[in-house]
């Protein structure tokens, strides 16, 4: 297939990666956009979700409200936001044209996995564990911070990982409102019938999504308290066995 050869050529040509409209620059722009959107959601929504999980209440409401982020197409939301006077299409620092609108749209898109996982993770810490914590005389905050949160962490991180990968891949829509990121190459490629360029950019997006997924999975594993203790015990066993 000629198109694959052309795509390969595009990806292996150094000049396509360099410069202010090269792949590296666009990749960093898109990463910045994705990470910022994720951070905004994490700071604003995650504490609420975790605390509701601790209370074991309001989860139905929180999860369903956040699911609006799933139901409303991100691009439709973006299209509405850019037609409004605010946030509109004003250039927003490194986030480019309509940067604020793009960040809002992406942050809302990140809501569902973060809120759902955050709530469920804390809520589903076994009742026996919660009761023992209370029985030891822990206050609500101590119970949350010392018992529930550590146990819930892997699932919380898994929500963040899911959101990051989704947001990263979706951030290509910024190009549709003349914003930054690898989406620029994809739309350009399609408009100029230079499909190799569009496919090359899509491949880069996919590869980075895969890498983010791997990093997220590694972080997730590192935060697993049960796995941590198993490893420690494993080390201990080895030492005792050696004696």
């Amino acid at each position, binding site marked *: 297939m000629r198109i694959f050869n052309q795509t390969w050529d595009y990806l292996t040509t150094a000049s396509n990666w360099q410069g202010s409209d090269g792949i590296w620059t666009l990749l960093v722009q898109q990463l910045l956009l994705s990470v910022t959107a994720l951070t905004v959601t994490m700071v604003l929504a995650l504490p609420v979700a975790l605390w509701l999980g601790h209370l074991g209440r309001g989860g139905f409401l929180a999860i369903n409200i956040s699911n609006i982020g799933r139901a409303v197409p991100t691009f439709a939301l973006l299209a509405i936001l*850019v*037609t409004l006077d605010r946030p509109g*299409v004003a250039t927003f620092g490194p986030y480019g*044209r309509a940067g604020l609108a793009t960040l809002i749209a992406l942050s809302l898109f990140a809501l569902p996995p973060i809120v759902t996982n955050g709530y469920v993770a804390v809520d589903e810490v076994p009742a026996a564990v919660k009761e023992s914590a209370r029985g030891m005389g822990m206050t609500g905050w101590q119970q949350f911070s010392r018992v529930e949160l550590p146990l819930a962490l892997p699932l919380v991180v898994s929500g963040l990982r899911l959101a990051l990968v989704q947001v990263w891949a979706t951030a290509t829509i910024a*190009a549709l*409102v*003349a914003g930054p990121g690898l989406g*620029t190459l994809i*739309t*350009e490629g*399609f*408009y*100029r*019938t*230079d499909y190799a360029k569009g496919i090359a950019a899509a491949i880069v997006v996919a590869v980075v999504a895969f890498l983010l997924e791997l990093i997220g999975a590694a972080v997730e594993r590192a935060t697993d308290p049960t796995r941590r203790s198993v490893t420690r015990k494993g080390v201990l066993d080895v030492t005792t066995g050696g004696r």
Partner: protein
Amino acid sequence: MNTRFLAGAAAAVSAVLLAGCAGNSVGSSNAADSGSSAPAASGGGTVTISGQNFTEAEIVADMYAGVLKKAGYDPQVKLVGTRDIYMKVFPKSVDVVPEYVGGILEFLNGTYNGANANPVTLSDASQSITDAQPLLKKAGITLLDPSPATDSNAFFVSKKYADANNVSTLSDLKGKSVVLAAAPDCKGRLDCERGLTDKYGIKITKILPLGYASQQTYDSVLHGESQLGETSTTDGTLESQGLVLLTDDKQIQPAENLVPAVSSSFLADHPDVAAPLNALMAALTTEKLTQLNAQVAVDRQKPEDVAAQFLSDNGLG
């Protein structure tokens, strides 16, 4: 098989897959037709019309269907998103396509001579068609008579900007610095950024890839974010939005006259499709087409009604 393919494509949120799916539906539904229509020598039978599905193309395709119906044919119209899609099955299983001279010639030029081939279209439609005969022959496509109506790229400013700077042609913008809102393929094109810079001496400080005649492009110019916007010569919505089209006085646009593209083998079997289509082309002008577009885009009429009205007004339908 086809339904499963459609369902699969619908599930995949990929432009490539969607394009492939639409291409497939054009092809598969016509595979049967082409076999059955082959024996008929002339006058009647099924004629398959395909083309793009933006407003103007839709109106013109409906006109094609109208005049061919009057000529005794049974027209089947299937419109799709982009030229790439129907060109996969034209002229094999699609018989007639409402085309634009530059559009079809440059597509064939790109197909046979590579994406970076020099443009073959001049600003004169008939001359361009004559020059491109080898390409058309290779593709098995015949272009009938080009219409005086032309739909090429054009550029507009807001009425406020036009009045304040006394601008009515692109030459009037010489030496001025402008931000251009245009289709994402504008950069480097002779009929867009490069032509505006080299031929007209306009200083383009930035190109916003907001689309061809898109709402985003209109808004950007109306709000003063950009000064110049890209649209077509037949854009019927400009006046009602307070936007002004600038004359292409140095003719950087290649000929984009409307022209019927017919499968050469279909035309050989059905020579009587040419006369009604040529008559239709002769009846259309750029102004007429702009008005018809406005009837759909501004007055919210249906393309098929607008087309039927035009045909009956001109004694064609």
